């Protein structure tokens, strides 16, 4: 028996999302009342500029940051769901195919070799982002190639290869950290904690493009993911082109997670636990699971980021610390409640 009807959960999460976004806009070093936020939002559309300082905090700093949190959270959670379905393993997450490990090597490499402050030709994106994205994509390609033979891609081999590449990436990271000076070391570790602090409209635009692509492509794969849970040969007997689906989903995951990590650093937990929690609530049907996890991931990351902004005023905490601190206890509580049934 299930705890919640799937359609009800999707509606609740869809209503929760804008509420979280609005409240989140008001939170920060300067607390802004809701009425002024609404004013600021309307002012841009109407063109009238009244309280320009509030407007600029809301529109130039907070809004892009909150939208970035929303998009990154949604993408990480939905791709975590996809990976768990594809690997038929509820413990899988996007880092399993080597994206995160490769990305952190790429980022560390840039920090150590050229220093993290260099601004790339594309204004608003640091060179670290490029390094992280390239690192993530290259390591995914290696993992995919190792696991693919003429018989197709073996998900078991891919899991193991992902672990191996992760270990190599970890070693490289330690090596790079060992040779860094204090300032680089701090930069590396802060990057690895995940931070939405550097959000701007360019990043939101890039992330929006990636999310849009996922929004178009993923819903059509829900049925195939359901069939894949039966096993690969069963899915083939149901008329699913398993190898094509695998290739497509792995490519999308590398792209989505690669871009997320490049723009926001390593934000763990969302991709692992959100799909798990939602599945415990409504079951493994991907037609509901995909939208629910996207919405829940978006809300969780916005909430975590809002708290990160106000918890140690006037400073900020890296967002990645908060996601785990918030979600893990909830997850443990859920596990204890369902202990007898799994």
């Amino acid at each position: 028996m299930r705890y919640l009807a799937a359609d009800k959960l999707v509606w609740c999460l869809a209503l929760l999302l804008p509420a979280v976004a609005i409240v989140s806009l008001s939170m920060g070093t300067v607390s802004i009342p809701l009425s002024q936020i609404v004013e600021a939002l309307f002012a841009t559309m109407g063109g009238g500029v009244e309280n320009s300082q509030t407007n600029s905090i809301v529109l130039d700093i907070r809004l892009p940051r909150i939208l970035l949190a929303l998009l990154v959270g949604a993408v990480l959670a939905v791709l975590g769901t996809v990976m768990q379905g594809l690997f038929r393993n509820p413990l899988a997450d996007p880092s399993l195919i080597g994206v995160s490990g490769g990305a952190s090597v790429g980022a560390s490499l840039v920090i150590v070799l050229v220093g993290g402050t260099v601004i790339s030709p594309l204004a608003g994106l640091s060179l670290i982002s490029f390094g992280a994205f390239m690192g993530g994509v290259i390591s995914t390609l290696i993992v995919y190639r190792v696991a693919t033979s003429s018989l197709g891609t073996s998900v078991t081999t891919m899991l193991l290869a992902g672990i191996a590449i992760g270990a190599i990436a970890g070693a490289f990271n330690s090596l790079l950290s060992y040779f860094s000076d204090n300032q680089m070391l701090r930069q590396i570790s802060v990057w690895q904690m995940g931070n939405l602090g550097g959000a701007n409209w360019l990043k939101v635009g890039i992330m929006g493009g990636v999310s849009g692509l996922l929004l178009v492509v993923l819903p059509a794969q829900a049925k195939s993911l359901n069939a894949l849970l039966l096993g690969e040969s069963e899915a083939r007997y149901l008329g699913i082109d398993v190898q094509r689906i695998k290739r497509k989903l792995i490519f999308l995951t590398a792209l989505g997670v690669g871009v997320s990590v490049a723009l926001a650093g390593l934000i763990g937990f969302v991709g692992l636990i959100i799909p798990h929690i939602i599945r415990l609530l409504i079951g493994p049907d991907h037609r509901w699971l995909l939208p629910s996890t996207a919405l829940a991931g978006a809300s969780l990351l916005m909430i975590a980021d809002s708290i990160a902004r106000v918890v140690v005023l006037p400073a900020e905490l890296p967002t990645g610390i908060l996601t785990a601190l918030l979600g893990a206890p909830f997850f443990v509580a859920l596990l204890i409640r369902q202990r007898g049934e799994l």
Partner: protein
Amino acid sequence: MSIVANNISLHLAGFDLLRNIDLSVEAGQVTVLVGPNGAGKSSLLKVLTGELNPSQGSVSLNQLELSQWDIQKKASVLAVLPQHSELNFPFTANEVVSLGCIPHATGYAVDQQITADALQLVDASYLQRRLYTQMSGGEKQRVQLARVLAQVWSPSDFGEQFLVLDEPTAAFDLAHQQMTLSIVKQFAARGVGVLMVLHDLNLAARCADNLVVVNGGSIEACGSPAQVLTEHLVEKVFDVKATITRHPITDTPLVIT
């Protein structure tokens, strides 16, 4: 129309799993494969359903080479129940069975009806809303059986349909073994070709139109149960001394060991 294997051999990892097999599985008939462990029954099923490519020879389904079939069209005429299921996600029985409706996609209402009917046929209506991960082995097996039945529940536009079951009765009690036989006969009477692996020779004798004995990767004997099941063959293939008489009611061969 039929599934026809034309002189197929299978070599995998240095082993000869199948050698020069010719076999025809006719629509509307029940074909049963029997044989000792490791004889190649499951490998033969995998080659006949396209899961493995034969090293030599060819397999055709409704007169079209298996590899030429569009994977979606093939799914609407060929349903396969493997020996083991990997499913370890908490779908309800309803959800598992409705996955069997993916190939025909006749709409939500029809799918729901087929799902309910298929579950009822395998005596599993009471499982509808229960979670697969919490079911017993026999219940899981029945739900999976209902899933493949749902896949060929209504006739397909792409030719005669086939139902392939690898040891469907392995986890069943006596009543559900009988139930499986009657379901299989029902589908055969409707024109579906049934191919299954069974271990119980008496069950096989009672439902097979064509009994195929596989031994050491090739076909030892093939024909009606009355022709095939002899004391000599049982001793040769299974290494067991047996007495064969007639079943007092069904008049099929009865193997007593």
